């Protein structure tokens, strides 16, 4: 069996709100699978259903070959879950937290010491052994959380926005750790709202309002984007932004510093001319050229809005 997670029609409703709507997932083993989406797109809710914290309102999920709602306890021994918010104990030290987790998972005594020492070395916690979690930096806490989540060698690791409180340098190192884990055969499901992180995943699902808007290998998603991407460089980007938004063929405009990324319906022939014409009409001088799509463009094309505006 090569899929770690299989879901069909996975749905979760909270009252009248449908947080996760008819999700189908096939997540291959020993790879990193990303969930990209704004807050409220259903990422955390999906994670919670996958580890049995929430019961699906409808649909079927199999995690590591087991039915989540029936074999919850079996699955829980085989997965690691890193919550969005730091969920170890603030008032315990690194060693005390790791020891607690090792005992809870019932690691054999002779394995315990070795595994904790290995985790400390792997996640650079050696100098922090007696430090309480409350006094550590975001990056250090995140390393501790990952060390704790992997101590029992789970086959599947669920990471819910693991890098939201972490500086860029720590994020890079964190991803190195993730690739090491995948190399050792672990399947990782990670949610993020950073484009650069999403690009690093083997496969990716773009979530919007509880639905999958696009799914696939990041490179392929960018190559096969359902829109033409035009880059406009211009010294009055705001004015150009407003001018182009009114244009019929333009689906969306995203500003990146003094540049604009414009998504145009794919059927339009020679959209650059239309854009140039419109800018000239408004007395704006600009360089207009077709460009390769970024993941942000893929996101915008799939959800018809930029990530920053997608949050409800």
């Amino acid at each position, binding site marked *: 069996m090569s899929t770690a997670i299989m879901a069909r029609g996975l749905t979760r409703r909270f009252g009248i709100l449908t947080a996760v709507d008819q999700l189908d997932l096939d997540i291959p083993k020993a790879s990193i699978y990303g969930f990209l989406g704004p807050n409220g797109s259903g990422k955390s809710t999906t994670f*919670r259903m996958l*580890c*049995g*914290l*929430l*019961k699906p309102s409808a649909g079927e999920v199999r995690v590591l070959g087991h039915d989540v709602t029936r074999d*919850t*306890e079996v699955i*829980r*021994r085989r*997965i690691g*879950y890193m*919550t969005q*918010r*730091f*969920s*170890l*104990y*603030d*008032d*315990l030290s690194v060693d*005390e937290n790791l*020891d*607690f*987790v090792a*005992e*809870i*998972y*019932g690691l054999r005594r002779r394995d315990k010491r070795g595994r904790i020492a290995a985790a400390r070395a792997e996640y650079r916690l050696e100098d922090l052994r007696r430090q309480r979690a409350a006094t550590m930096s975001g990056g250090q806490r995140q390393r501790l959380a990952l060390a704790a989540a992997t101590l029992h060698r789970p086959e599947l690791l669920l990471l819910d926005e693991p890098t939201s409180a972490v500086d860029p340098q720590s994020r890079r190192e964190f991803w190195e750790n993730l690739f090491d884990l995948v190399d050792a055969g672990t399947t990782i499901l990670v949610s993020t709202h950073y484009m650069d992180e999403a690009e690093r995943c083997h496969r990716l699902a773009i979530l919007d309002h509880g639905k999958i808007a696009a799914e696939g290998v990041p490179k392929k998603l960018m190559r096969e984007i359902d829109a033409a991407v035009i880059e406009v460089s211009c010294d009055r980007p705001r004015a150009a932004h407003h001018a182009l938004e009114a244009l019929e063929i333009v689906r969306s405009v995203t500003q990146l510093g003094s540049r604009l990324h414009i998504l145009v319906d794919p059927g339009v022939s020679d959209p650059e001319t239309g854009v140039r014409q419109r800018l000239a009409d408004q007395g704006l001088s600009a360089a207009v050229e077709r460009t390769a799509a970024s993941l942000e463009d893929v996101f915008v094309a799939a959800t018809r809005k930029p990530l920053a505006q997608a949050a409800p």
Partner: protein
Amino acid sequence: MKALRRIRAIATKEARQLARDRLTIGMVVGIPLLQILLFGYAINLDVRNLRAGVADHAGTAWSRQMVTDLQASQVIRFTTQVATPVELTDALRRGEITVGVYVPEDFERRLADPGRPAAQLLVDGSDPTILNVVSQLREMPAPARLPAAEAPLFELRNYYNPERRSAVQIVPALIGVILTMTMVLFTAVAIVRERERGNLEFLITTPVGTLELMIGKLIPYIVIGLVQVSIVLLVGRWLFSVPMRGDLGDVYLAALVFIGASLTLGLLISTLARSQFQAMQLTLFIFLPSILLSGFMFPFDGMPVVAQKIAEVLPLTHFVRLARGIILRGADLGELLPEVRALAVFFIVAITLAVLRFRKRLD
């Protein structure tokens, strides 16, 4: 085996957190000290319908008339009739009655003698309020008694608290009040706090079982509870010379059962409350009736039936009876078995409900 290790892991973790929480540690020692000093003085109120027993050795029309008159005073209510004064003191010690009336064989002759009391009132003086009220019965007019009699109708025998010191009554029951306050509160916030801090979301995705989690959390507090019992007993002894007439082991056993009942009550609150603040409100909701209805402040017998029914459900009521019985009346645990049983039942019901209420889910 793994379950035991998980329970131990939870208990160790909880104890470490406790040791680092200075406010809580302060409460462990501070609350008993403060309370015992605050409640050094008793509050006296009117009392009615005290349970009473009678041993009538005279058995004459006049002695029966006197018993009827006593009943009519409404201060006491006869529930038992026994043959000898020894049986009266036994019932007194077991807590079945709080007042005993002993009518001697020569009752009629004594009635005619203005210099001598005609009968005896045996009073459980471990509650001074009761003692005050009953002592007023001494001067009750009786048939064939000369109005000018120098001696009162009854001779009063004050059992268990001859010096009539309120501290003696307060301190044993205070153990229960302090434990109710601290034990319920500590565990009431225990699970809510983990939920609020986000720890629970991690914890419930681990293999730890609900019962393991609950028991692991209780263990450190059991130790704390026993420490508090010791503080109150020691301070009671040093400052207020509270006697220890029963077996010290019995006191700790009774306290242990009561601690168990209080802690599980707290856990139950913890599974009901959504925030630490709500947990504290709910604790107060339990604490006030406990103090007012348990017999700690006002004698149980004097309360209306509805209040008595409510009081029977509260663990503190049973512990107050146990503590006074063992410490002041020298009763052993066997004689007070119904109270122990009530606490044990409470413990089992509360922990069952808590485990059922707690789901390893977020919804």
